[in-house]
């Protein structure tokens, strides 16, 4: 190739290469600009949960949504300020993802009793607008470290380790309902 053609071709190739880098690249992720992403196992938006059923031991509690932070019993009694905590617990189920997931194959040979899921410490069932079951979760014991809590989803063989605050919110809702 002649010298007077070579340089423009090389320059054009260099420009093309830079353009390809621009097209194929991605903006560096800066932690302070990370977009919020709900990672909870409750995939539907919290507002779509219209009924909550909690059970601990022999006690059962059912609550129906009456507003954004208002919940009533099946008898129509408004639980007042405690409704805010129910909404918060649903919100956390939507936002807070599992810290760890253990596949069923990874549990072969393990003793399931220490997980505390049979029977569970606390069960939560969330229903949608049409009365369809959105999510049924069982909370068990804390892990040996004490910061996480075992959780299982009905119909899902995986074992989840959730922040203990997730189950803790539901436990407080249950304790409040029992006190009423």
């Amino acid at each position, binding site marked *: 190739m002649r010298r007077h053609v070579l340089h423009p071709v090389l320059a054009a190739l260099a420009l093309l290469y830079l353009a390809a880098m621009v097209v194929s690249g991605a903006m560096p992720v800066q932690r302070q600009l990370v977009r919020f992403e709900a990672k909870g196992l409750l995939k539907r938006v919290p507002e779509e949960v219209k009924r909550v059923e909690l059970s601990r031991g022999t006690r059962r509690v059912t609550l129906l949504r009456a507003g954004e932070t208002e919940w009533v019993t099946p008898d129509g009694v408004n639980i007042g300020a405690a409704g805010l905590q129910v909404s918060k617990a649903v919100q956390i189920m939507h936002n807070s993802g599992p810290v*760890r997931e*253990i596949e069923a194959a*990874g*549990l072969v040979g*393990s*003793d399931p*009793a*220490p*997980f505390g899921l049979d029977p569970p410490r606390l069960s939560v069932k969330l229903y949608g607008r049409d009365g369809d079951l959105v999510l049924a979760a069982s909370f068990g*014991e804390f*892990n*040996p*470290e*004490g910061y*996480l809590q075992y959780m299982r989803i009905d119909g899902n063989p995986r074992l989840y*380790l959730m922040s203990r605050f997730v189950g803790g919110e539901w436990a407080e809702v249950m304790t409040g309902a029992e006190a009423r």
Partner: protein
Amino acid sequence: MEHPELDWNALLWAGGWLAAVLVLFATGLRLPLQTGLAGWRGRAYSAGVILIAFGAAVLANVALHLHDVHFDLTREKVYTPSGAAMRAIDEVSREVTVTYFYRSQDPAGRRARDLLAIMARRNPLLKVVAVDPDRDPRLAREKAIQIYNAAVVEAEGRRVLVQGTDETEIAIGIQRALRGRAITACFLEGHGELPMDNFEYHTHLESGAGHSHDDASSQVVEMPGHGAGRLRRALEAQGYEARKLILATEGDVPAACTLLIAANPRTTFLPAESAALRAYLRRGGSALLLLDLGFVLEPGLARLVAELGVRPEQDVVVDPLSHYSTNPEIVAVTGYDPHPVTRSVSLTFYPGVRSITLLPPASDLRVTPLLLSSRDSYTRPVKPVASHKVEPDSTGEKDAASPPVSGARVLGVAVEGRLDRDAEPMRAIVVGDSDFASNSFFPYMANSDLLLSVARWLAREERTTAVAARVPVPPLIALTGRQSNAVFFMVVVAMPLLVIALGFVVWWRWR
């Protein structure tokens, strides 16, 4: 990190195995599919081929399993246990169980698990159980484990908990579990010694002309304000207990003190303290005496040290040939005569070390010079600090005027034997410097190796493999004066001049 040499024996077995498998595979490919045999002969041929192939596969697997070999192709040998840890495992003579609790998502935890598995294959007496506590919470609760990356070492009813992912620390934990006796290092205090609770350190080297650590009459570096906390931590990592000992109040060295460390006493001992130290050594005790410049020995202590066959001189060793950094008063020792203490020690250095004169020791004592300066070294007298003076020193001025005589100087000795006929066998090490044991110099070069080796010898543990836990230090680049000048010249002079010169060339061509 120290790594074992390549295991050529295992490598040869593995190479031979690979060759054998390839030969068998090539032979199998040459076997005729159509033999022309009819009836039962044909079926017998097919069954025979299948059986032989199956048998060869089983044989190959069993052979490989019994000649397990591990290749670590990473440059840093990330997946290979350190040589010291492996040697410690080789010495395990009784059954030890290590239960390692790790999080399987954590790469460091997985690495530690793999290294432990390699160590377990080395010695069948070492049983390793790796547990993810989230998957097996029962075992974690049984062992009272609430953290990840923790090893529970159990041997003969003793239990040692090691936290972390460093296999050398787990190997030390195994040694601790098997030791069966408590070793206590008593740090002498009350005379201005380096405190064992002090972790202050400097990351730079300085001479007397710069930072003020020194005796005013010398260029030597001393660290009177710093401690021996790093030495203490290193001893504790070996499973030793550390405690303070103030002789003036306790009156006697407790029997629990396996070894006594006097690191840089500055004020003179009381006669009763010297007597207590002598009584301790007569009972078969072990002492590390780091007697720095400026310390004046009380007559009773001077007599005891003379019985040990040494006399610390009031002078500083200057070594123009073998020194660390650019300061000839930081004497470096690169070679040692054979002794259990210095068996695996490389370069050590001593900022501001006083020389030691060898005297005839008490009858049953053996004195071995451990540390020697180079043949080019000489000494320069240093006046004792006035407040430390016990007797008038009339020799200082005269010695200062005399020309220096070059020759190797003794910097440290090991003493072993009985102080008198009725005494128990004792051990002692006397060094004319303490700065090398201070926090500022302990982690560098082989100073920590030497001090740990000293402690192990004094504790009569020299037969077991030394596994030293790592001391985390900030990265340090040590440059000689010439290198510093070269860096300055390149960055401050040469590079700007180069830019100017290039600019001038471009301007000249475009002009």
